[in-house]
């Protein structure tokens, strides 16, 4: 994907950055999460996916930063092996994108 993109939904126009991350986390809802997940090759969001997505999102909204993969594995309630089974292309990055928060910037 190149340039700014936007997803036209029934409600509002959603602004997303060049990589598809939401610019404004408040524009997010569960229906949009399902749309983004499908774009990322995840056909259906299971309860396991939701647990990770909601943890990422709430941690970001509380602290202003997305948690590291280490924190995700220790505190989300989903162990690391399972995280990679749910999100093979990178749990932290994908859960952030689907959860409507900016791309995590940390190295860990």
């Amino acid at each position, binding site marked *: 994907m190149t340039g700014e993109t936007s997803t036209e939904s029934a409600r509002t126009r959603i602004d997303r950055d060049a990589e598809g991350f939401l610019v404004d986390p408040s524009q997010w809802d569960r229906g949009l999460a399902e749309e983004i997940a499908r774009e990322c090759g995840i056909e259906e969001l299971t309860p396991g996916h939701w647990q990770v997505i909601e943890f990422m999102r709430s941690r970001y909204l509380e602290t202003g930063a997305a948690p*590291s*993969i*280490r*924190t995700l*594995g220790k505190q989300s309630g989903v*162990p*690391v*092996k399972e995280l*990679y089974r749910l999100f*093979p*292309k*990178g*749990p*932290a*990055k994908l859960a952030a994108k689907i959860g409507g928060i900016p791309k995590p910037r*940390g*190295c*860990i």
Partner: protein
Amino acid sequence: MIELAQARGELEGAREPVQKVSIVVSKGSLEGIYPGLIMANGARMEGIEADLFFTFFGLDAIRKDRQRRITVATVGNPGLHLPTLLGALPGMSWLATRMMARQMEKLDIPPIGEFIELIHDSGGGIYACQATVEMFGLTEEDFVPQLDGILTVGEFYERSAGAQIIFT
């Protein structure tokens, strides 16, 4: 025209994302081991396949008896900006290691044992170099349970087919 097309093809090839990395860790100091671990974990976080191949003193990172005793080199390490004679004082390496460990914990970088476990659970391969294992008289029993195998150099290259090989 053909040349132009070739040049364009090469450019496009160069832009292709990295799919797989094989990272060789050859040093046994803290600063010799961490960069490889961070790169392997970072690769997995991007959905890139990653293998770690430990050789020579890099093996300490996956040896049961040594993994917890890895320290910063305070002698022969100009980056520390510490006079060599001071760096040689007893306890100096321990002190520098403790300071660095505290800093890393703040950044959520795990200790080496936990880091190896994290990479292993992420689907990264953990391999030991057979030549070094033989040279040091070690067996599989000497390594942490995350070890996926002991490989010859040939087997390492075979596993690395299609990968970028990074030597640290």
